[in-house]
């Protein structure tokens, strides 16, 4: 198969190859009944499939997909045929190979037969529940059948999950050296359903050994063009496209694919110019589309493929490109338990929430990648590192740096990680080098190169260079180029060796001139010195000047990140200083916004500070301020009546005017509540706790939604009403009993569902039957003003209106 792959590449250097069009719809036209497995039907009707293969071959397809799109064991299981996965795939593919051979003999055309692998219908960890290894094993069963049939190459197509693409690709690569094309599907926003960008897909799959990458389905050719251009920029391998004939639209009351063969084929030249090497059609296309596309491609040559000279990493969703013009990349160092007691405890307990928080915090602080390390005693390092990957990958878009000294742990991690990882690290230590290089090469990982050898920690740059060259030479045998290797300049402590910084900087300078990436673990330089931040920041700036491209650091360290921003400007890596200006413009605005109100408030008398705290919803300040006011001898009733209630009324007005939105209203109400709790004992003592009225509130029977009611209750209490809150799912009898006991001025009822709002008139009827004269106010998501009127109730749409309604009713009562 390796030979076949080479010859396919030779052809691809000369011309653009044509794929087939839609198969499923062609089968439907030829009698495939609805609800039947196309694979089983194809196997039972080989002549029908052969007819489709022939139609496409005669239309000009150079490659024909076998009718095995749903041939994974999981898909076949839906039709009770999973146990025959190998045989089914083999029989279908044999029919395709036989048809191609017959065409060659009779008509002189021999299309290549492509073993087609579609999505398995399940999501794979860390994005689903199917174990990654189980997925690989399942795909191997399908691949085995296709190999047995003698297919010429493979396609993994219509993928939405990068991890599934990886599993299928590994399955092929671990069984044979078959030429493999992988195409994912991207929507019009340029993302897969799971958020993968074309760039991330290209980097991940090329590094894992795909021979062609590309796109199929989901959009028409117009929308796909840009995706093809984006992929083409990232890869050295050929690029494929298989667009739909547009997306279905309703036309004259019929749902149709809008693009006819002429319009579809008009995209041949734009696709060729975008750099496509292989093109066909997906949903809505037929042999006519392919025939016209083939004619459109006649005379068009593939673009020359130039080597990609940048370092590329990827997460499951995004690619990170780094070259000498890129800003220095910060590798967040905080997910490493060494010397971190909290993280150690959480990892031991198997609790990943803290790890996710560290990942998010570092991403927010400006990290470009995250180093992950689980090396500590008392835990299973391999499993913990896999758990960290599972936890971090869904919450941040950054590529990961796999940090372990154990090659087995590294292998497990890079195999599972759904992107192109950077391994930290490889050295000239013989055993490690021999074990790690093939692993890194198999999974396409980039490598941090540590200039260390067995029993040798060189302190001179010259010795380090020799070791780096030795490792690079060995790595080159596995296909590594200097751009894929990141040389660690080896940071030693300057307090114990005054030449340490100089030797490290010399190593960085030399390595960057050789086209390697360079990285430093900065903080070691200042070990043993006071005020280490200054030393670290200065060293960072000097290293930036020497050509540093990556730094392992804590991105929350402000001085360091500011120094990085300045260094990027001074070394020409931040064009027009845009990032630098943005960074400080942002910080300046933040400071202004943060400081202004607090500063303003601090100058005011304490009672006005209380008012400001309520208006601004500063819950953290209110208790201290209230205590302070009481200590100053200010009467609690005065604070409440003259400051806090006017403040909360102002907030209500702001809310009505839409100057404030709901969280601000609630934050102010909470602030008031907390302040009131401080004042309440003093108010009681002074006998000034008269309430504006007594209200009984409940969510009606059968309804368990009470957040809206709780907001209303909070607001009412703040305005001085005595609210008896009966909670949720309360019977009419209990509501009426409480209203009677507390001599309520008003009953408040809440309901969220149409099934439960019917309880409201029941409560009103029961109140009347019991001789209660108090009014009833209703509210809730499904309750309308008209409905309230129809049952003889008052209505309020929110907490502010509820306060007004309650105030009016209680005043009337008095």
């Amino acid at each position, binding site marked *: 198969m390796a030979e076949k792959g080479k010859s396919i590449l030779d052809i691809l250097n000369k011309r653009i190859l044509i794929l087939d069009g839609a198969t*499923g719809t062609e089968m439907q036209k030829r009698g495939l009944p609805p609800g039947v497995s196309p694979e089983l039907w194809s196997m039972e009707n080989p002549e029908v499939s052969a007819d489709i293969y022939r139609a496409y071959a005669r239309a000009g397809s150079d490659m024909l997909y076998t009718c095995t799109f749903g041939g994974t064991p999981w898909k076949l299981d839906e039709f009770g045929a999973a146990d025959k996965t190998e045989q089914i795939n083999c029989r279908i593919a044999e029919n395709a190979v036989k048809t191609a051979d017959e065409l060659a003999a009779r008509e002189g055309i021999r299309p290549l037969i492509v073993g087609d692998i579609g999505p398995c219908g399940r999501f794979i960890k860390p994005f689903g529940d199917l174990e990654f290894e189980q997925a690989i094993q399942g795909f191997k069963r399908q691949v085995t059948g296709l190999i047995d049939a003698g297919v010429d190459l493979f396609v993994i197509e219509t993928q939405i999950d990068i991890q599934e693409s990886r599993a299928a690709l590994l399955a092929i690569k671990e069984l044979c050296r078959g030429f493999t094309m992988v195409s994912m599907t991207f929507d019009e926003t340029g993302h897969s*359903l799971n958020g993968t960008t074309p760039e991330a897909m290209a980097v991940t799959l090329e590094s894992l050994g795909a021979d062609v990458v590309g796109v199929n389905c989901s959009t028409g050719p117009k929308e796909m063009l840009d995706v093809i251009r984006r992929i083409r920029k990232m890869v050295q391998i050929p690029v494929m496209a298989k667009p739909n004939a547009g997306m279905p639209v309703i036309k004259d*009351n019929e749902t149709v694919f809008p693009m006819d063969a002429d319009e579809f084929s008009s995209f041949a030249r734009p696709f060729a110019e975008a750099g496509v090497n292989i093109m066909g059609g997906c949903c*809505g296309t037929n042999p006519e589309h392919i025939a016209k596309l083939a004619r459109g491609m006649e005379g068009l040559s593939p673009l020359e493929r130039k080597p990609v000279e940048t370092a590329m990493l990827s997460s499951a969703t995004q690619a990170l490109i780094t070259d000498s013009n890129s800003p220095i990349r910060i590798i967040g160092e905080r997910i490493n338990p060494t010397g971190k007691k909290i993280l150690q405890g959480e990892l031991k307990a198997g609790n990943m929430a803290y790890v996710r928080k560290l990942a998010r915090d570092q991403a927010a602080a400006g990290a470009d990648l995250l180093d992950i390390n689980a090396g500590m005693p008392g835990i299973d390092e391999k499993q913990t590192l896999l758990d960290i990957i599972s936890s971090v990958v869904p919450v941040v878009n950054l590529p990961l740096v796999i940090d372990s000294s154990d090659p087995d742990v590294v292998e497990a991690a890079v195999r599972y990680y759904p992107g192109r990882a950077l391994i930290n690290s490889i050295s000239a230590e013989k055993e490690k080098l021999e074990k790690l290089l093939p692993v890194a090469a198999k999974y396409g990982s980039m490598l941090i190169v540590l200039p260390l050898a067995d029993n040798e920690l060189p302190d001179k740059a010259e010795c380090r260079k020799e070791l780096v060259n030795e490792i690079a030479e060995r790595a080159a045998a596995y296909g590594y180029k200097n751009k894929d290797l990141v040389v660690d300049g080896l940071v030693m402590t300057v307090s114990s060796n005054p030449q340490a910084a100089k030797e490290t900087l010399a190593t960085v300078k030399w390595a960057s001139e050789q086209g390697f990436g360079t990285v430093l673990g900065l903080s070691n330089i200042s070990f043993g010195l006071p005020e280490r931040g200054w030393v670290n920041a200065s060293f960072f700036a000097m290293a930036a000047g020497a050509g540093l491209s990556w730094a392992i650091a804590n991105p929350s360290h402000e001085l360091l990140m500011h120094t990085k921003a300045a260094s990027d400007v001074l070394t020409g890596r931040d064009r027009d200083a845009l990032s630098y200006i943005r960074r400080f413009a942002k910080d300046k605005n933040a400071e202004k*916004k943060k400081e202004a109100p607090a500063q303003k408030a601090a100058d005011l008398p304490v009672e006005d500070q209380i008012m400001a705290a309520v208006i601004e919803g500063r819950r953290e300040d209110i208790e201290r301020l209230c205590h302070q006011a009481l200590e100053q001898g200010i009467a609690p009733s005065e604070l409440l009546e003259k400051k806090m209630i006017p403040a909360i009324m102002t907030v209500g007005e702001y809310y009505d005017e*839409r100057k404030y939105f709901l969280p601000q209203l609630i*934050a102010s109400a909470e602030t008031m509540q907390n302040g009131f709790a401080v004042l309440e004992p003093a108010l009681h003592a002074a006998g000034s706790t008269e309430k504006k009225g007594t209200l009984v509130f409940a969510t009606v029977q059968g309804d368990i939604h009470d*957040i809206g009611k709780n907001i209303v209750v909070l607001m009412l209490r703040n305005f001085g009403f005595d609210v008896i809150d009966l909670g949720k799912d309360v019977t009419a009898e209990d509501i009426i009993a409480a209203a009677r006991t507390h001599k309520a001025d008003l009953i408040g009822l809440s309901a969220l569902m149409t099934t439960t709002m019917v309880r409201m008139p029941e409560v009103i009827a029961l109140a009347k039957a019991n001789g209660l004269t108090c009014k009833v106010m209703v509210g809730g998501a499904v309750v309308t003003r008209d409905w309230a009127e129809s049952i003889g109730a008052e209505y309020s749409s929110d907490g502010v209106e509820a306060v007004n309604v309650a105030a009016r009713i209680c005043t009337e009562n008095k």
Partner: protein
Amino acid sequence: MQPLRTFPYIPLKVPRHKILKRLGYQRRQNEISQRMMAEVDSWITYAADHIHLKATARIGDIHIDHGKGTVALKQSNTVFESAKFTRFLGKADQLLIMGITGGQAVADEIKQLQKDKRMTGAVIVDAAASEIVDEGFDWLMALFNKELVRERKTLKLKRFSAGYGDFDIRFQADIYHILKMETLGVAITDTCILMPEKSVTAFCGISKVTGE
């Protein structure tokens, strides 16, 4: 009815703008300090941290009687009565039925925050959870649409739920059983409320691509 499909992990998408809109935020009119907005954002993140979106879904053939205002699910005894629903489905011949939950943890957090009198947090987490669950539906629909296009079918991009208009919420019980939502850890009350909160069901119509 096609076999039930279970989606135990749906990727979370946090639609910040929709969450803010749900809370009443209007960029041009609201005056909000950076401190307050940072708090809102941190509660949104908190909500996302406690949500585990999972779903079940299945496709069924339907017979729509526009005259009677009914939608019958073939190969079952279920007939939904709602003129509005029949109008919504138009010429659809299949129905995608979806049930999704944000999980117990986020519902517990909303309760606990209220209990702890941290209503600001409760309100934001509640709104965020609702919108994140809604995004889960969008994800499911996009997935089904991709698969259906290959069968020359297309999914109507709007959805409908029990409780809308004249579609009685009591049909929620039928939907619950069709979707086996108990397998997601979801229960249903006598009043047809799905528990935990932030568990919802929805329908979409599926039409055949009829032309070339």
